[in-house]
């Protein structure tokens, strides 16, 4: 009964976030994210209908919908990347290299699995496939968060809330899917409440952050420095090299 209550609360919150998005025209700013939310709303209503009418079929449909949602979530991550780093080509290049590194790791793992006879794609179930998708999304979001923190990228209230809510959803999903696969039915009760609770929390974050339009602070851009990145690197490198030399000498008075 409690889980059903959380489910209905979640649906109401999605409806509210979507209604605000239409009213504030935020739907044009983050189209993929709102498409994802609309997908979640309609599939949740469909699942609720199946839950009441064909209960035995519910589990099968649930995992199909979850997997489709995870696949659509990749678009949300891309939207976060585009909005956060679109105005910062340098930081975006760092993020792209990080993503390529993540991709290289994934491909290496697939090759290693193939060479040990596990096949290119070792997952056999939709649950495992969804977990793999969430893993890639989590790795990409970790990389994005590191770049955003390192380069002090201003996000603005809307984008910050979108990213925070989605990161909460992804991390909870990843942890619960991993533990449920490892612990089996022992984890089922916890998973049954933890997952919807995380979803409602993420929706509450989105509801608060995307209630109205919040402008992204304008970046301070220095065109001269942009044109002269090598000089900047030389100046900074020289500063640290001199500093290190002084400190090394300091250890040998």
């Amino acid at each position, binding site marked *: 009964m409690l889980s059903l209550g959380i489910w209905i609360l979640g649906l109401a919150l999605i409806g509210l976030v979507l209604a605000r998005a239409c009213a504030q025209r935020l739907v044009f700013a983050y189209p993929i994210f709102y498409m994802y939310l609309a997908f979640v709303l309609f599939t949740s209503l469909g699942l609720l209908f199946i839950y009441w009418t064909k209960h035995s079929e519910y589990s099968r449909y649930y995992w199909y919908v979850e997997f489709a949602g995870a696949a659509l979530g990749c678009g949300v991550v891309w939207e976060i990347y585009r909005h956060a780093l679109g*105005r910062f*080509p*340098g*930081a975006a*290049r*760092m993020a792209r290299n990080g993503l390529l590194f993540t991709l290289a790791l994934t491909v290496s793992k697939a090759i290693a699995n193939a060479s040990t006879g596990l096949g290119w794609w070792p997952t056999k179930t939709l649950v495992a496939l969804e*977990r793999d998708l969430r*893993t890639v999304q*989590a*790795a990409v979001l*970790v990389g994005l*968060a590191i770049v*955003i*923190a*390192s*380069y*002090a990228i*201003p*996000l603005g*209230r809307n984008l*910050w809330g979108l*990213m*925070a809510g989605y*990161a*909460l959803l*992804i*991390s*909870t999903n*990843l*942890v619960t899917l*991993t*533990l449920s696969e*490892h612990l089996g039915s022992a984890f089922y009760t916890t998973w049954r409440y933890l997952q919807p609770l995380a979803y409602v929390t993420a929706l509450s974050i989105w509801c608060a952050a995307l209630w109205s339009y*919040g*402008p992204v*602070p304008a*970046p*301070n*851009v*220095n065109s001269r*420095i*942009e044109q002269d*990145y090598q000089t*900047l*690197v030389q*100046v*900074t*490198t*020289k*500063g*640290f090299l*001199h*500093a*290190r030399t*002084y*400190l*090394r000498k*300091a*250890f040998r*008075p």
Partner: protein
Amino acid sequence: MSEVVLLTGLGLVLLVLMAVLRYRFKSSGAAQESMPKPGVPLSVEIPQELVERLFGSDDWNFVRAQGSEQLSRLFLRERRELALSWMRGVRERASGLMHSHRMAARASSDLKPLDEMRITVYYLLFELLCQSLVLAVWLRGPVALTGLIERIDGLSGQLARVAGRAEPVVVDGGLNQT
């Protein structure tokens, strides 16, 4: 089992990172506020003559000649605090240099990831060396560090000059480099 730890760890790291981001940018404009203000010193400047006097052995010899254990302890404690405060200042300058670099580099379309990684390594090494010096101050005491202090003072000034060159400065309607 290792996969469970790895994936659970990844999920938790993501949560921690989001909390760090929240802390760093409490509001949407926090990133701008966190930029070092051009022209504002990152730590209290101490003139060279005063530094030499504060960290030289003359005062310590004088205090020790008084034969008061309590006075010697008080003197050493105050000098240690001063030395640590100075180290904090040096680290702040290094941090300011790194911050200024990233503020300028983030918008550069010519950015080279390898150069960025190299500079990050330099910074981390420098931080490590600074922490080692702080430890040395704690273990050896400030008076025994006369040679060290003189060098740190030179480093502090040098970093300030370098940071000043790299630091973006607001000019009418935009930023410029000093």
